[in-house]
Structures are given as C-alpha cells and as structure tokens.
C-alpha cells in the first residue's frame, strides 16, 4: 500500500461482489504518485485516493467532479499524458500515466503527430454494432448465430454496458433470467461473445461519425482513426442520466446515481459515507439499496411526485432498514466548500412550487440524482435518421419500426438508445434487430430460416408481454408512437 492510499475508499468486503484487484500500478496526479490497479479507470483510481475535483469549468472556473462515470457528460475531462479533454472515467490507467486537472477548454496537444497512429485500419463486417450493452451483446450473439460476421464496438474498455454494475436480481420472466443478478447475466453473455469466432470486439473505441453506405468513423484509444464498414449497422448506444436544476448542482459530490453505481460495483470504490438520493424511481431505490450493501448510509430519498415511483417491493426493501422517503419534496440546493457537505430539502405544493418555511438540511457527502435517463441518439441524428421527441421513450429517439429499423434503411436501433426501458427489453430488441438485419441480407436459408421466423415472432410476443401492465404503459405507448411515425414518414406498413 502506498502512502497515498491512506483514507482510501476501496471496498474490501461486499455481500454480492468480490473485487479481484489486479496488478498495482502508479499514476502521477500533479506529480503525486497514486496507487492504481490494472483494469480500472483514471477516475476510479483518483477517486479512491480522495480526489473529487477533475476539472474547472470554462469561464466561471467552478470545480467539477464526476457526473455520469460512463463517458457521456464530459464533467471528468482531464489532461492525460499531455492531451486535454480526455474522459478520465472511461480511460484505463497505465503505469506512469501523467494526469492533471483540466482548466476550462484545455489546450491543443503539443505532442507531435508521430505519437499517433496515422494509418487508419479499415474493417468490415456484415453487421457492425455500436455499443456492447445488453442490446448490443444479444444482437451480436443472434447475428453470429444467423451466419453474419459481426464487429462489436464499445468506447468503454469492457463489454456489458450498464449491466455490469447491476448486482440485484432481475425482474421479468424466468425464461429471460429473472431472479438472476444482472452481473451474472452480463458475464455469461460476454463469455459467449468472446468465444464466438464470428464476432470481433473492438474496445476503447468511440464511434463518432456515420457516412453513407454503412461507414462508421471511430477513434481507438484517443489516438487512432478507424474506418468500419457494415452491410447493416446497429446503433445500441444506451442512455445518459439527466441532471436537475438546483443551486450548486455542479458541486463535486453531485453525481448521477448510475455513476455512484459504477464506482462501487464495477471498481469497488465507495462513493462516500452519507448519501442523499434524489428521485424514487427504480434506479434511485435500487442504487440506494446497493449503496447500503457497499456500507454507505442513505440519509434520505426525496421524490417530487406525491408517491414513490419505484416498484413497491424495491422501496419496501430499503424502508425496512429505516431509510426515509420524502414524497412531495425536492432538493433546493447543495452546499459545501469545494465539495458536497449537505443539501437543503424543501416541500412542494400541489403545483410543484416550493413551500416557504419548509426547508430543512441534510448532512451528506454525496448527492445522487436519479431523475431519469435520456436516449443517446447523436449518431442516429448525424446519420440522417428521422429523430422525434417521444416523451414516453424518455426523449429524442430515431423513429423505428417494429423490426427496429430506422428511416435510413440498413440502420437499426435497440435498447435504451431507442427508448429508455430495461435490460430484458434491450436484449430482446437486440435480438429482433439482428434477425431483421439478417433477413434483409437474405440470411439464413432453409430450415434455419424457419426457425428464425419463429424466433422473431416469439421475441416480438415477449416484448409485448413485458410491456403489459401499468409499469409497461410508457414503453408500450412510446413504441406505438414510433411505429406509427415510421409508417407516416416512410409510407411503409409494418
């Protein structure tokens, strides 16, 4: 253990997870050596060593901490080995790495071109999949099974998307692994993908542009351009967490709930000691429970709506440990010197207005926001897919039909990026997209085609059954709107 590891927040014992820390490495933070473990990110190593500020905002120079921890918000950008604007939350540590806080917009790298790989490799596959979450993984397995060559790309340095941090047992149907923990489902899918000789995986690679003819431009490890051509393309880029407007909402210590989950469940780093959770939907309540499992105290959950948003059973799980849930309340402000030290809560009236005089303070070192996610639709927009705002799908999405094809033929979407729902749905949608893509390429043939026809039919039915009931109404209505829009825009009937 190095000196810098004093006051570490690394989790040693956990009721569900075991953290097998790999080789010890050293990174240098403003010259100070920091212990890191191979396989973790710069942000998790710094966090474990007590660093909370990663950058300073342009103009006002306000300290910024993590927010999403999955590469989606740029709150954590740092100067890493002389390059500005590197997302420290998805950059794996390397021995001897030099890391510095970033001020404002950063500077153009002084490093010479010679440090970069100038030759850009060109890769091809029948099906190119952007995003290795449950949607992308399940699509890759299905596509490979139907005889397609697959290239699976993820900007993270490991596969699994959001599934690798879900330590709870899943809801849903037994046939689709309900009762099994998300992390276990992820592991089994990842192992299958890695074992498949039809699937090539490219990690640490961000897709940033789409060009006609199924051409994807991507950048590998911040230094190499890659050109990838797919006969069919699936954009399964997931979703990003929403923020919320309140005073000091950018103070280090205000995180997306998913970021806290990533820190503790993927990297084994405790996000803090005392947490205020904002939002009582499934994510807020599940992450609260998982924080308790990591040894963190939940001071309270606040919910603006007049009732709890999560499945009742999830809420009951934390209520029996005495965690208070304040419905009809919201956060008014965060306070603290350079980092979160507490929050002021206020009661809301039936018109959502704060009721003066009802404020009270909660002492905490972390405020988690679980106020929804929005689909990551940027690549779809850039590719020219028709984009519409569908509130039931939680934001802007590429209009798609029942087979998950967008208005640009050959481009498919699946999972949270096509409307925020949940993992079993993401997996089934990935499957549907892969089968539709295979059919459009005339694959497979004979007996296998009949089987695939049945599988498609069956999966579509299961999607409907999962969207049954009051909790499925949003997804059900949102998808219906998308299918109808697709018909209007393309004149096609599906």
């Amino acid at each position, binding site marked *: 253990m190095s000196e810098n590891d004093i006051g570490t927040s690394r989790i040693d*014992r956990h009721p569900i997870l075991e953290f097998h820390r790999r080789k010890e490495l050293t990174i240098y933070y403003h010259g100070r050596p920091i212990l890191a473990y191979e396989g973790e990110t710069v942000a998790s190593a710094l966090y474990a060593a007590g660093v909370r500020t990663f950058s300073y905002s342009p103009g006002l120079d306000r300290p910024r901490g993590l927010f999403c921890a999955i590469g989606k918000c740029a709150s954590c950008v740092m100067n890493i080995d002389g390059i500005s604007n590197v997302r420290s939350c998805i950059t794996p540590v390397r021995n001897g790495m030099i890391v510095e806080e970033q001020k404002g917009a950063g500077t153009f790298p002084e490093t010479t071109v010679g440090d970069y790989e100038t030759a850009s490799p060109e890769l091809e596959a029948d099906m190119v999949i952007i995003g290795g979450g449950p949607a992308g993984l399940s699509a890759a397995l299905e596509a490979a099974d139907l005889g397609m060559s697959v290239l699976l790309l993820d900007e993270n340095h490991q596969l699994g998307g959001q599934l690798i941090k879900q330590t709870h047992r899943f809801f*849903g149907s*037994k046939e689709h692994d309900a009762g099994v923990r998300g992390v276990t489902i992820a592991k089994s899918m990842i192992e299958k993908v890695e074992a498949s000789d039809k699937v090539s995986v490219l990690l640490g690679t961000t897709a940033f542009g789409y060009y006609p003819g199924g051409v994807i431009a991507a950048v590998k490890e911040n230094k190499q351009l890659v050109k990838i051509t797919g006969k069919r393309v699936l954009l399964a880029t997931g979703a990003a967490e929403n923020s919320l407007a309140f005073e000091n909402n950018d103070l280090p210590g205000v995180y997306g709930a998913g970021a806290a989950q990533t820190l503790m469940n993927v990297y084994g780093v405790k996000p803090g000691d005392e947490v205020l959770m904002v939002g009582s939907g499934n994510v807020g309540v599940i992450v609260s429970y998982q924080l308790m499992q990591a040894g963190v105290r939940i001071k309270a959950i606040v919910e603006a709506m007049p009732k709890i948003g999560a*499945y009742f*059973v999830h809420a009951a*799980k934390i*209520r*029996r440990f*005495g965690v208070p849930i304040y419905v009809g309340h919201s956060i008014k402000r965060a306070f603290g010197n350079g980092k979160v030290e507490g929050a002021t809560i206020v009661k809301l009236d039936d018109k959502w207005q704060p009721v003066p005089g009802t404020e009270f303070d909660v002492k905490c070192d972390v405020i988690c926001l679980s106020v929804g996610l929005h689909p990551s639709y940027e690549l779809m927009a850039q590719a020219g897919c028709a984009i519409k705002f569908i509130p039931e799908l939680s934001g802007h999405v590429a209009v798609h039909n029942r087979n998950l094809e967008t208005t640009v033929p050959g481009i498919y979407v699946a999972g949270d990026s096509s409307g925020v729902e949940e993992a079993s749905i993401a997996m089934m949608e990935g499957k549907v997209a892969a089968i539709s893509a295979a059919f459009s390429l005339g694959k497979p043939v004979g007996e296998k085609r009949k089987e695939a026809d049945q599988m498609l039919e069956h999966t579509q039915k299961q999607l409907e059954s999962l969207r049954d009931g009051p909790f499925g109404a949003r997804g059900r209505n949102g998808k219906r709107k998308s299918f109808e829009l697709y018909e209007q825009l393309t004149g096609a009937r599906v």
Partner: protein
Amino acid sequence: MSDWQTEGYLTVDDLKEKGNIPPEERLRKAPVAITECIQEIPCNPCKAACPFDAILMETITAPPKVDFDKCTGCTMCMRVCPGLTIFMVYLRKKGGEEVGEITIPYELLPVPEKMSVVEAINRRGEIVGEAVITRVFPPEKNSGTALITMEVPAELLMEVRSIGRVIRGPEGVSR
C-alpha cells in the same frame, strides 16, 4: 388500504385485505410462504421456482397468490425473488408456549451468527423487540442472498421483517 404507495411499506391489514395472510391453523401447522408483492409488475421467477405449483399467477404482471394448502414452506421461491418480498412464517410450539418463526432473505453484511440475538425490525425500520437467530442458510449457497431464520415472540410474527444490530453473540456475550 393504507398509504403504502407514499410510505413504502404495507400494513398487516393491507395484506389481510389482499388475502395474503394464511389462516391461523395453517400458520400453526408448518412454515408457509407469504408474498408481500401486490403491484402489477412484470415478474414471475417465484412461480417458476415453486416445485409444488403453489404460486398462482395468471399473467406475468399479475401479483402472485400462494395456495397455502399446497405450499410446503420449501423456500425455493424466496431464494430467487428479486423483490426480497417473500417470507416464511410459522407459529411453532416451544415447550408450553408458542413462538413466531420467521425466515427472511438478507443481503447485507455482516451475516448474523446462529444463536446470536439481534434487533427485530418491522417494515418501517423500527426496532420492535429481539430475535434469536436459529438458522442461517449462507449467502454463498444462494448466489449472495442469505436466508435467516429467527425466533420472535408469537405476536410479532406478522411484524418483524428485518434485522438490525447484534445485541448478544452466540455465547451470550453482549456486543
């Protein structure tokens, strides 16, 4: 029904109203499963896990109903329930008296030791008495979820649903 949607816990009356509480005779016979799951959520692993077809559920979103006559108290359903909302309850004879035997799913550390005495906690997180841990099905045998069986005064059978701090260790040592 109570304000369960704003409070986050059910009352015994709510569960009675839903028909989720077994009759007294059944409670005295042997451990039996009760499900505190009353919302229409897409979930069915409890039904799939029951070897005795004792859990009824028409569609995947229908709340489960236990057939108390068919249920053998085997715990298979509670082992997989993602809501941690199935409990085994039993009014057991002990000497001349009756005690409440409750089994809960538990996923926090530390896992209490057998024969230790712990705080008995209700659905609202309040301490309502003491519980003696009588059996521990270890978490490593059930992918992380321990099953903790405890003894409480008979009148707390329908109240206690969680445990708190250890009051005395297995050797009677106060902690």
